[in-house]
Structures are given as structure tokens and as C-alpha cells.
């Protein structure tokens, strides 16, 4: 029971990340009709926003260490600590939450820049060409990051206050042995919040309504005198923000390196396909579903029955879904069925 509960949590947590990336991917596909292979790279850039923030906040200077009296000892002290004392240390400690705030405008800008300078020329071209050009873009982005940050993973830690594990078992009467890292609980919560925010934006605002109208019938919306292209640009930016935030929040879970994006890209594409191309609900549902499936299949009990299943379960599900239900779990009839 404990194990199953933990695996569900694990899966939801992993699924949160999948769902966030897949959501952006679907948003772009549904609005612009573009298959974006650079989406994983955007996730990675988001993660490196956090790394950059940390680098900036911990800019240091060598200061004489007063505790050593026999000789002159120096230690690296961040400027923030010098200037603000304990407040400074607290700011450095809270680097991930700060990067979330910072990364929103950065990712929005990046997304809009990408769409205006490159993606918009590919609306009318084939999916294969879209895949190729965004694949090239992904390579460029990840190599740029590699140039500036090197090839090794760079750890960024979550604030100390959430460093440990939550005694989640005792909350719901499963015993104290069941614990779960705070940060990953927060990640789960965060992804739920972001997903609901995106859905409310699309469903409950006029802006979102127009975007949905544009998704359904672009020409008519344009005939009504609405500059739909501009809104779609914003949607692309929004998708970039969602992926970027997912990346920022993921840094304490897994230290980011430059090819992290590529690893996530394949998974998130699989998630989108399972959920149904162009279906936002499908993407989210499939994200959580596949996350849970994956974490269950990595239990030792399951692995001892079918060895290696944890490595391939997601792809296996995708293959089965694609062959038996071409439009995915929740895809609309007729959208990209062939």
C-alpha cells in the first residue's frame, strides 16, 4: 500500500513535468499547426535561466576571513551577502523562486522572437520541413548553452526551507515511514496551478476565446477583422513560458545540462501523440497517465516479471495507441488522423 501510494505520487510528479511540456507543444500545434522540435530546447533554456540567475546572485569577491588569525585567509563571499548580510543569503537561497519571476518575461520574449523571426515562415510548409528547421534550431540553442555553460550538469538547489522530505504518510494515516521530498510535492502543485492557469486563460478570457476560435477556424476569425496572427504569436510566447517554467522548476530535481531538452523532447512528443494531437486536455491527461505508468513499471516487483519494462513502457504505450486509436486518447475526430 505504501509503495503503491508513493509510486502514484512519483508518477504524478513526473507526469506534471511531461504534462507541462506537452501542453506547450500542443498549444503551438493546435494554434499554429507547427510541429516544434525545439520545444525541448526551450525547456532547457528555462532551466538555464535558473542557472544564470544563480550565477548572477552569487557573484563573489574574495574577502579576508576574520576567523583565521594566524595567517591571511580569504574566502569567496557573494556581493549580496556583503551588502545585505543575512537578507542577502536568503535571496541567494531563494534563487529558484526568483528565477521563476525573472524567466517569465525572458521566455515570453524568446518565444515571440522565435515565432516572428523563424516559425512564421514555416506555417505553409510541410510538417517534415517544420520538424527539420526546428530540429536545427534545437541544435543551435543547445550548442549555445553548451558554449556558455559547458557540458556538465550544473546543480541548483531549492530553498533550504523545503529541502527535506514531507512526512506525507502521517497526514493521511499511512505511518511515518512514508515520506516524500518537499520540492517534488511543490512541483506537482506548481504544474497543476500552471495547467489550470493556461486552461482558464483559454476558456474564461475573451482573448482566450478568440484564440480558440482561431484554432477552430482561422479564416473566419480573420474575416471578422481580428489580427489572429498576432494572438498566435502571443500563444507561442505563452507556450515558451510554460515550457520555460517547467524547466526552471525542474532544476532542483535534476541538475540541467545542455542536452536535457532533447531527452525530454522525445518523451513529450510521445505524450502529445498519446493524448491526441491538438487536444490540450489529452496532453495533460496523457502526461499524468504516462508518468504514473512509468513509475509503476520501475517498481522492482514489476521489473522482476518483465525486465526492462521501465525503460520502454512509455514508447510501448505510444506505439499501441498510435496503432489502435490513431487520433490519440482525446483527439478530435478528423484532426491529424493520417
Amino acid at each position, binding site marked *: 500500500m505504501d509503495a503503491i501510494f508513493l509510486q502514484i505520487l512519483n508518477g504524478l510528479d513526473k507526469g506534471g513535468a511531461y504534462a507541462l511540456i506537452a501542453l506547450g507543444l500542443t498549444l503551438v500545434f493546435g494554434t499554429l499547426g507547427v*510541429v516544434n522540435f525545439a520545444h525541448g530546447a526551450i525547456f532547457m533554456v528555462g532551466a538555464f535561466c535558473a542557472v544564470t540567475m544563480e550565477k548572477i546572485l552569487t557573484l563573489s569577491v574574495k574577502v579576508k576571513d576574520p576567523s583565521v588569525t594566524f595567517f591571511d585567509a580569504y574566502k569567496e563571499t557573494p556581493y549580496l551577502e556583503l551588502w545585505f548580510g543575512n537578507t542577502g543569503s536568503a535571496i541567494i537561497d531563494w534563487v529558484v523562486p526568483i528565477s521563476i519571476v525573472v524567466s517569465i518575461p525572458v521566455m515570453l520574449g524568446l518565444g515571440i522572437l522565435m515565432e516572428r523571426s*523563424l516559425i512564421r*515562415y514555416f506555417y505553409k*510548409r510541410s*510538417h*517534415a*520541413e517544420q*520538424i*527539420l*528547421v526546428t*530540429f*536545427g*534550431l*534545437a*541544435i*543551435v540553442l543547445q*550548442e*549555445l548553452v*553548451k*558554449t556558455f555553460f559547458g557540458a556538465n550538469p550544473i546543480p541548483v538547489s531549492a530553498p533550504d526551507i523545503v529541502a527535506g522530505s514531507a512526512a506525507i504518510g502521517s497526514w493521511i494515516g499511512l505511518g511515518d515511514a512514508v515520506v516524500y521530498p518537499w520540492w517534488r510535492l511543490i512541483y506537482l502543485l506548481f504544474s497543476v496551478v500552471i495547467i489550470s492557469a493556461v486552461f482558464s486563460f483559454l476558456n474564461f478570457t475573451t482573448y482566450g476565446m478568440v484564440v480558440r476560435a482561431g484554432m477552430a477556424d482561422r479564416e473566419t476569425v480573420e474575416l471578422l477583422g481580428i489580427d489572429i496572427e498576432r494572438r498566435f504569436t502571443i500563444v507561442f510566447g505563452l507556450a515558451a513560458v510554460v515550457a520555460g517554467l517547467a524547466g526552471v522548476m525542474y532544476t532542483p530535481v535534476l541538475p540541467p545540462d545542455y*542536452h536535457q531538452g*532533447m531527452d525530454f523532447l*522525445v518523451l513529450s*512528443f*510521445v505524450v502529445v*501523440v498519446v493524448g491526441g*494531437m491538438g487536444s490540450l486536455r489529452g496532453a495533460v491527461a496523457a502526461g499524468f497517465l504516462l508518468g504514473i505508468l512509468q513509475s509503476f513499471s520501475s517498481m522492482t516487483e514489476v521489473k522482476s516479471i518483465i*525486465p*526492462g519494462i521501465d*525503460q*520502454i513502457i512509455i*514508447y*510501448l504505450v*505510444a*506505439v499501441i495507441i*498510435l*496503432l489502435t486509436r*490513431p487520433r490519440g486518447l482525446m483527439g478530435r475526430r478528423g484532426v*491529424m488522423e*493520417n
Partner: protein
Amino acid sequence: MSNTQIATPRQELLYMVVLSAVVLTMPLWLQPFGAAYPDLMQKFMIFGIFAIGYNILFGLTGYLSFGHAAFLGVGSYTAVWSFKLLSMNVVPAIIFATLLAGLFAWLIGFVSLRRSGIYFSILTLAFAQMSYNLAYSVLTPITNGETGLQLNQADPRVIDRMAGIEATSGLPNTNLFGLQGTGYSGFYICAVILILAFFVSLRIFHSPFGMKLRAIKSNQTRMSYTGYNTRPYLLTAFIISGMYAGLAGSLLAMTDPLAGAERMQWTASGEVVLMTIFGGAGTLIGPLLGTGIIKYLENIFSAFNDTVLHNMFSFLPDWLNNILTAIISPFVGEGWQLLLGIVFMLIVIFLPGGLMEGYGKVSRMIRERGQKNVDDGSSDKQHSTGEV
């Protein structure tokens, strides 16, 4: 530019003679470019074969597969196992690798080809990732996981032992009936196989089968309304290109008998896509050209570093030298992939047909200019002759 006509046997012969001459004299004419050493030329050949095969699928049918590296990996593993168990002779290795890769391609193709377009890409991607993950985890007894599959002095090598060939000291070398599989002789083995592979691809391009594949690319719906069942043709093309990949993998194992799972990662599939498109998908020479140029530039640029750059610009004043070096250095050495990515994007944006399309455009421009000067009214005839 598209090779739409069935070529006459004479044209084909010409093609083959020219290609063979160019390939076999590579050690001579690559000398001035500083690329005439066996390792690099072997790479040209091996990845050339890979790209030719990939082109049969992507170039002719337009099905964009992101999983071909898996077949390359299968080929490599099979070849190394053949070296370990049977013989250091490359013949069984090549045969088994090609066949097994073909079998894999049949399995994966059979499933993947139920869908087309982006779904096909994602299915192949999924299969490639599956094989990669399995090679790293459960299949470790076969693939030796992260270390990679290596030769060992104590390997059985049944056939070799029966023939009385014992490795005396150190590891035995791969060979083709005594001809070494590394160095210049290795290059020539690869070169001959490349020429054969090219011949097969040439025949396919100009055969009715090739025409049908092209028809699938231009309009699959119409093709099926005409009464063709397209799937067997697609599957055949998929298997053939998978076998080419397996062949390339076995040659890779011949020149360096060490097979690792990273050869199967999907980004490795991306590389062959890159090479094919760079040269020109759907053209005969394009993939070879793309492979040659990319591998050559990779070799040149990844060897650059700041010192080399400084020396290169040493004729300039110091400040300009430093600026230029600072600008260029992110694109060379470790950052060569960045340059590749940018160039690739430019190609896809402006020249979707690759270098061959660029060549076609330029030559057409020159021809038209020439015609204007001559000022003749009977230019209709001229149009059909230039196309090969």
C-alpha cells in the same frame, strides 16, 4: 534536378565510372585538402553508405524516419559478435549485420508504416529510443552496456580456430581474407562496398520500383486510387534503407571493433537526416556530397582552437585579430555543432532541396544568361536536355 527519367544504360555506366574514379582516387585528390588519411576517408565511405540508404527511404518516399541509427547500432553489434564468435573475417560480419538489420527494419517498418507523416516520424523515434534504452539496460549481456561491446583475446572465434589461425599476441585485426580492415586497405574495402551500394541505389532510382516510390511521395492518395497498395513498396524501401544502415554499422565495426549504444540514440539518426538534406534528398549524389562535406568540415573545424585562429589571422593588426578570434571561436572546436546547426537551418529555410538544388539553380541561371546572349528562338529544345 529530379531524376525523373529512366536513364539509359550508357548514362548509368558513365555515372558508375565517374563515381568509381572519384572515390578510388580519393587518397590522391584529398591530399591538398589535408584529408587524405584513412580514418577520415573510411568515415566518408561509411556514412556515405548510411546516407545513400537513408535517401532511398526519405528522398524517394518522403517518409522522415528518426530511427535509422537503431539499425546502424544493430549492424555494429552484430558485426562485433560475429568477430567474437565466428571469425575476424569481415565477410560473415557484413552479411549477418545486413541481414539482421534488415530483419529489424522489417519489424519496425511493419508497425511504423501503418501511419504516415509526423506520426511515422514519432513511431520510428519511439522505436529507436526503445532500442537505445534496452541496449543500455536489460540487454547488457548482449551489448555490454555503457562500456560498449569489445573484442577479447579469449573469444571463441570458431571458424578462425578451425582454420588454425590463432591470435598470438594482442588483439587480432579484422580482415578480408588477409587484407587488413583498418588503414588504407580498410578504406578500399569500404570504397568498393560504397560503389556497389551506390550502384544498387542507382538501379533503384531508375527502376519502376523507384518510380512508384516517387509516386508515393508526390501523391499517395492518388497512388492508392490507381490501384496500388502502397504499403509493400514503402516497407521494401524501409527494409532496404535499414539494411544499408546495418551495412554501414558493420563497416564501422570493421574499422574500429567497438560497438556502443550511443550510436543508436535518436540524435545520431538526426545526423544522417542532416547529411542527406544538406546534400539534397531525393538526388543520387546529394547524400554523398552532404556526407563528404559535413564530415570533412567536422574534421577541419573541430580541430580549430584559439591558437590556430590567432595564427590564421596573424597578418592582421592585433586588436582586429583578437576580435575576429573572439567572434569565430564559439563556432569551431567544441562548438562546431553550433555552426552545423546554423548552416542546416539556413539550408532548410532557403534551399530545401539541399546543395543539389543550389547547384541546379546556379547552373540554370548561367544557362539562361547564355541563351539571352545568343538570342535564339528555339530554346524549347534546350530545356529538356540539361536535366539528368
